[in-house]
């Protein structure tokens, strides 16, 4: 039987700011079929005059019954993100469909070491993968390289600071020195390091960041067939 992807109603059950410009919304979606880390939802807003705007948001949490969380970064000139970050309240309903996307996903049964490379709010699907690793008791080695402007822009910072054994987190800050002492600056080859054996790589961020990171990874000898990328557009973030 063909399962048509229906629009569902999600009720906001929790909302919390991660930074001054990003907020996590936890949605309760009756009939949610479950999902894999890395998948996303499409959110559709309809104005009173019938005008519609749709955006795609990565799911931030592993599958957990009918609960789905997204972390949204506000774009100054965005049509949808300002509403999700500042407008929506607990109890409100959002129209959504998902889970969608079956390529940029991490399968918890995989034992292959994982390298996650995040640019800005591109960290969201990657933290879902980290959380899925922890939730499923996987022992796959994980390393997250997270590029952000400043420490104040890092999403889920407390959680990343408490990463368990087998999970490495390196911050690459572009506008200030990183806590590790790394000078301010964009992602470089020596931030990534060379692969030792097979590594599944997931890169997510603004298009320019992803192109540049993917090129560096191939230069360093990472297997192109094991590099999965997700680009969300210009300097802006969704």
């Amino acid at each position, binding site marked *: 039987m*063909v*399962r*048509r*992807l229906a629009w569902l109603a999600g009720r906001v059950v929790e909302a919390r700011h991660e930074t001054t410009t990003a907020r996590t919304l936890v949605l309760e979606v009756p009939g949610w079929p479950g999902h894999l880390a890395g998948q*996303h*939802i*499409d959110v559709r807003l309809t104005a009173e005059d019938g005008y519609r705007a*749709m955006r*795609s948001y990565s799911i931030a949490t592993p599958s957990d019954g009918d609960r789905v969380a997204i972390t949204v970064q506000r774009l100054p000139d965005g*049509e949808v993100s300002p509403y999700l970050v500042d407008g929506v309240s607990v109890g409100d309903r959002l129209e959504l*469909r*998902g889970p*969608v*996307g*079956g*390529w*940029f996903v991490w399968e918890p049964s995989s034992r292959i070491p994982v390298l996650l490379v995040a640019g800005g709010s591109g960290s969201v699907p990657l933290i879902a993968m980290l959380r899925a690793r922890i939730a499923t008791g996987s022992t796959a080695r994980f390393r997250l390289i997270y590029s952000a402007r400043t420490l104040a822009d890092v999403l889920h910072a407390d959680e990343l600071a408490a990463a368990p054994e087998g999970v490495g987190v390196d911050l690459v800050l572009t506008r200030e020195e990183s806590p590790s002492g790394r000078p301010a600056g964009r992602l470089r080859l020596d931030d990534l390091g060379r692969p030792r054996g097979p590594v599944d790589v997931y890169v997510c961020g603004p*298009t320019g960041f992803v192109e540049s990171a993917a090129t560096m990874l191939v230069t360093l000898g990472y297997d192109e067939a094991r590099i*999965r*990328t*997700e*680009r*969300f*557009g*210009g300097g*802006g973030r969704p």
Partner: protein
Amino acid sequence: MTTQHEYVDGNRLAGPLADVFAVDITAASTSCIGCGRRSVVAQLHVYVVGEGYVARCPGCQDPVLRYARTSTGGVLDLRGTLSLQVPLPG
């Protein structure tokens, strides 16, 4: 609004193409009529205008797949695709 200079990638097509395909199409691979390059749909360069999508070959930038959602239906144009290979469970 995403402009010509701000492409995203084929991951974005997962929801819209679920209107017309029964399986997840982002994991399918295409071959481009222009240059013959095989790409996973998720890796095509996608330009979005409203609910219209143009997916271009990352090699030669020729359009491989176009999709638009209108108020009454979906329009899928696969003229730039030589073949679409869809992974299916055995």
